[in-house]
């Protein structure tokens, strides 16, 4: 069956609430700031928001429902999307169909998390049943240890070197130099990267994102609604989503994108070389490298060579994570899953926080996450483009 196009549905109003390393405020506070910013900038009233999608790890014991009363919303479309790094694109997909079908007019998509001094430890120890039973008791190294195993296996299998991962991190750091709220504010040198403190071999300090508090948000609505609100917007050319792909792979060397990548590009009517910049989910550089392979930029196992033969800064041959990605800006919990999409929207509406990618007309945004046991279960991607 042919998938339906996203014609008529657009995303607009990229909002970022500046990140802070630690915050005594609740997730509700951060989500509330993002929602407030959306309404203020769009000159809307609360009751104009008739669709609401939220993603957060620290908003418990509340879910989306509790937040409707907390924030004074009365939506006719509501979704709670607990998919971590895949949340942004999943929210986009759900909301786009809703506005296309007329189930909602203006959907606020919000992601945010607080970061108390013990948030990280508490989250790790109760992340999932399989993590509780079969991962956390083994050194309690968290996702760092799990991705260290994945990284080690990838390096053993395809000859990737630490220097290859370094190039990704260094370029992202350069892209972040103009982002005021970035957690990492300085250039990163190869020497610093290579001699950084080991976290879980072979992962070292600068392979890891810094957990922090923050929020990201955007609005999904019909194109005519966006125009009537005078909001610059981006078109959605295609999206894919997959969970628990390749369960028989002994270790994760590919994400679910590989299953659906053909559909991603054919639905968009584009080839990989047609996009002007790429936002991957960068919880660890090895996953960004896998996304280059699985999303069609190079073959499986050629990630290292692809990185060696391209420049990844905003003015380079393959602009990648153009606001620095989570590795530079920090991971504000579930907001990390919105980061790439929000940055793509900024670039495609010529209002970047950092430097503008030249001729930014089309972008591939990718999401990934939810390491339930030994691999990230969720993967998704979207091709988005400047308004016509």
């Amino acid at each position, binding site marked *: 069956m042919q998938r339906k196009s996203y014609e008529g549905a657009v995303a607009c109003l990229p909002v970022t609430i500046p990140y802070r390393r630690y915050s005594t405020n609740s997730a509700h506070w951060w989500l509330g700031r993002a929602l407030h910013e959306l309404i203020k900038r769009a000159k809307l009233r609360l009751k104009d928001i008739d669709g609401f999608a939220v993603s957060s790890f620290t908003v418990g014991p509340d879910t989306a429902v509790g937040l409707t009363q907390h924030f004074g919303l009365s939506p006719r479309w509501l979704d709670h999307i607990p998919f971590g790094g895949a949340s942004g694109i999943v929210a986009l997909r759900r909301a786009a169909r809703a506005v296309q079908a007329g189930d909602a007019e203006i959907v606020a998509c919000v992601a945010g998390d607080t970061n108390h001094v013990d948030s990280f430890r508490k989250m790790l120890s109760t992340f999932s049943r399989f993590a509780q039973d079969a991962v956390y008791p083994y050194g*309690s190294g968290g996702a760092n240890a799990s991705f260290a*195993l994945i990284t080690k*296996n990838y390096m*053993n299998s395809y000859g990737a070197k630490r220097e290859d991962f370094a190039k990704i991190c260094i370029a992202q750091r350069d892209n972040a130099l103009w982002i005021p709220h970035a957690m990492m504010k300085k250039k990163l040198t190869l020497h610093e990267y290579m001699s950084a*403190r080991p976290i879980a071999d072979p992962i070292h300090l600068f392979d890891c994102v810094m957990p922090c508090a923050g929020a990201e948000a955007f609005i999904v609505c019909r194109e005519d609604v966006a125009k009537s609100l005078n909001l610059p917007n981006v078109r959605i050319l295609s999206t894919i989503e997959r969970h628990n792909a390749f369960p028989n792979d*002994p*270790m994760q060397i590919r994400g679910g994108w590989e299953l659906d990548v053909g559909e991603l590009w054919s639905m968009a009517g584009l080839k990989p070389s047609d996009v002007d910049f790429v936002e991957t989910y960068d919880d660890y550089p090895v996953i960004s490298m896998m996304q280059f392979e699985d999303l069609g930029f190079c073959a499986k196992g050629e990630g290292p060579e692809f990185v060696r033969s391209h420049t990844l800064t905003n003015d380079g041959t393959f602009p990648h994570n153009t606001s620095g990605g989570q590795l530079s800006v920090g991971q504000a919990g579930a907001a990390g899953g919105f980061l790439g999409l929000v940055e793509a929207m900024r670039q495609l509406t010529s209002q970047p926080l950092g430097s503008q990618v030249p001729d930014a007309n089309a972008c591939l945004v990718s999401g990934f996450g939810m390491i339930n046991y030994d691999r990230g279960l969720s993967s998704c991607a979207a091709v988005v483009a400047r308004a016509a």
Partner: protein
Amino acid sequence: MTEPLVRPRRKDPLKRTRLPLRPQGVRSRTAHGLTAAAAEGRFALQVCLDCSTVIYPPRDACPSCLSARLPFRDVPRGGILIAETTVRTSTEPYFRERIPWRVGTVKLDAGPVVVAHLHGDAVEGERVRLELKLDKSGSAVTMALPERDTENMADDPHLREMTCDPKFRRVLITDGRTMVGQAVAKAFSDAGASIVFVGLANPWKPFPGMGGLRKIERAEIVPLDVTDTESVTELAEQNGARIDIVVNTAEHIRAGGVVNRRGLTVAREEIDVRYLGLLRLAQAFGPTLRSRGADGVNSAAAFVNLLSVHALMNWPAYGSFSATEAACLSAAQCMRAELRPGGVKVVNVFFGPLEIEWFQTVPPPKVTPAVLANAVVRALQHGLEDVFVGDVAEDIRQRLAVNPKALEHELAS
């Protein structure tokens, strides 16, 4: 290459004692199927009854056919260590003070992919064998050992966290008067205990084996009467802080039933020696053991009970004895929970009839004191919690698991 353990030096008396911490022990109910297997030294995973898939991590529906019939069965332990990492920073205080800590991904021959602790001699890319061990939280974890035994293997520090190895530890055998007590004392000496305290009550009463006790290397006879609170308290006050393993060999075995008995004096003795004796030892030694669970190479490690298997199902010919053993078993379960915060294991070693005078008229198979003693030492070396020694004990364990009522009748006939 595992570095052999070095005999610990005398502790600096001015230094603070490191307090015990534990890894997270929370598990889903289904995952505790692994804990049951680890307690007995078995390697068991869920095997789908409908499609034979071997499953890990433990769960409630088969990922191949969604069947809910997923019993735990013994499966082959072999596999390949695909990738390893060394964790160098952890949010969990227990691991934080024990890093670096190696973990890895093992692809089992039986099918599943398992995240496991790594023995120091497990090499990436090579074959390993998996074991289920009880970590300091008392819950099961997987550990990958080299496929073949390596030198000094038991001395690997991370493996030693999971076991109660007597090597370089100081042991108290509560009663050296009996054949079992003497065999246990010798077995611990042979296993490398740095000192074996042997308790003796009423030294004015001679007994065979007295000479043999004195000949055991590194054995020291101390006054101990488990029926006398003052005696137990005094020994604990003097020596409690340098006893790492307590093995309760106090014995009172008499044939006789409940209806088929005249008077209560024998029952009182049973209760006083076995049950109240256990309580006295628990109260006197328990708190110190619990506080020393992380106190170096010779940390407090275990409290061992020798229990008749008939604690689990009464044998009317020894009915009053069975009932007292049942009381001791329940008390031991309580102790297990109470000592767990210190990472100290309570080990229950179940035996059937023994080759001693109190089981004289019972037909074979019977277990000799030496075999029982070696089983106790092995249980500690492997970090087991529930051990069944001998054919009869194992037979009763199996029958109990299938049909307790039938066993009740069989023991009565």
